[in-house]
């Protein structure tokens, strides 16, 4: 039962103690990357390396989505030739990777974050501005 409890469920039982926002990292330009700096509010809740691993994987996935390479150029040229009407019928590479990201976040939430009373919100829900980490009141501490 503990493994299958979801966070929607958790939300009904627990109150939100705080929200931490991981901001974007613009040192490489406008590519979607998030800061890997470990926020101090999470120190008591989760391992630093675990968290950084999650953010790093997300960064890699976003980099893959926005990668300029043969495939994206091919897609772009084909789209241009058809006056971009292919976008109405085809799912773009970016969207495929976004689905992958959503699955990854769901998985991370279920396996790692929910048991610790945390919830990661998919950045796409926040306009790719922040990774929102919701901290729920920790029942184990009796608060």
């Amino acid at each position: 039962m503990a493994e299958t409890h979801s966070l929607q469920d958790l939300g009904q039982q627990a109150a939100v103690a705080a929200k931490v926002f991981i901001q974007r990292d613009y040192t490489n330009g406008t590519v979607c990357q998030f800061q890997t700096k470990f926020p101090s509010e999470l120190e008591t809740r989760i391992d630093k390396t675990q968290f950084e691993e999650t953010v790093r994987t997300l960064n890699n996935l976003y980099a893959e989505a926005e990668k300029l390479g043969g495939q994206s150029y091919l897609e772009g040229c084909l789209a241009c030739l058809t006056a971009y009407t292919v976008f109405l019928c085809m799912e773009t590479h970016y969207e495929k990777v976004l689905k992958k990201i959503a699955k990854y976040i769901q998985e991370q939430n279920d396996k790692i974050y929910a048991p610790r009373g945390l919830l990661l919100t998919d950045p796409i829900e926040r306009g790719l501005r922040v990774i929102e980490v919701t901290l729920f009141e920790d029942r184990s501490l009796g608060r």
Partner: protein
Amino acid sequence: MMKNCEYQQIDLEALSTPAPTPSPQPVTDNGKEEEKTAKKQRRKWEVFQGKNRFCCDGRIIMARQSGVLPLTLGLILLTSVLFFIFDCPFLVQHLTVCIPVIGGALFVFVVITLVQTSFSDPGILPRATPDEAADVEKQIDDAGNTTYRPPPRTREVLINQQAVKLKYCFTCKMFRPPRTSHCSLCDNCVERFDHHCPWVGNCVGKRNYRFFYTFIVSLSFLTAFIFGCVTTHLALRAQDGKGLVFALQESPGRYPFSQRLSSNSLNQHFIIIYIYILVICFFSVWSILGLSGFHTYLVASNLTTNEDIKGSWTGKSGAEAATNPYSHRNIFVNCCSVLCGPMPPSLIDRRGFLSAEEEAAAAAAPQATSREVELPVLASKKDINVGSKCVSEESPARPASRPRAPPTPPPADRRRGGGGERAGHNSAVNSDPARDRRPAGRGALRHTPAAAAAGDAHTHTHHNAKAQHKRTHRGARSALDGPGGTRAASPGVGRSSKDRRNAGSPPPLP
């Protein structure tokens, strides 16, 4: 609540299916809440805070003021149709059948790309949620000093070894990402903001720049093609007779449509039509070709119109010489990244369903306290686009003396290709954050003329950009070749109006 350790068994089906029946709120009675949410399940576009218009249940997005889009569409359709009716038959007989085929292909291309530019999301950034806004405010306050002066609302980042200032947007309550600008006409922050184009009635930004570029390039080809064909037609006719006037007046007995059209009065109409097509195409070719050339330069150097006009990377604005940190320093790579790069998704998810807490937030929005500070006096409008109140604080207070140009004169203005006298309105492209702190009362009263003047100024800025391109071309080109960062990916333009996000993800937790 803390003692309640009994978890309800999760209903996986309820989780995986999207709304219209989201998980019930714990606060009120479950049954009643479900009934309520099932009844008024709304999509996100209905509570969108910018000044945009939505059609087809959120599939189509436009600026609230459609500008002169109907005129643009009308001119293109009229000129092309007249060309097909009056010139193609003659040219098919005398030259080749390829002419209407090529013309038709170009025409279809132009119309499709115009529609896509006008009706797609340019790259609007959704506004910050209240929690995010509060977090940012806290960070700003922490960073501020203890004097009475308000803390600075800018953040500096190093992008490819180039210092870039990020400004805080008071309307959207966030620090704008690099290359993002707030459009005062649409009241949205738009990523990689190029300009607001009244001719297409929409902003041009990250997601629709490639549509816009394809539109103007294909339009220049189309107008040049039509111009060339009509000139050829008249030249061929003139060869048969004693000059052009005779050719126009002679009764074209051999050609289709002509058996019925043999009277002099109808030949007069022919003359008018040819003159109309020639005049439109002649002026269009010059202005649109110029605009295409300017945008080709921008694409090759990975710049936006906004940056070019403000001289962000050429040192014109008085700062020390800076190089464009987003350029790949290779013309080919720049072109590919801007035009053929991956298509970013729409961040506003306009067809997604609102979750219960978003509904609550939207209902509370007109009374949001954070806005009261900046908008003390303003009648609240019962409007779907709630952001109409906020535009006052962003729209620059231009003197109302500048009259709004009605739709018909712009063609004349446009044909002149913008002039040097419009150089003063360079700052119209986006709102200056320094203006954000003006008392909104003044802005509120000037809402309509300011927006109209801003629209006018935007028009002129748009066309002034072409004139300026020739002057800044050499100056800015050196920025391209200068030393600077290596690569900064500039994601291309994209569009997605599918319910992708709605399909599989459960609504976010409160």
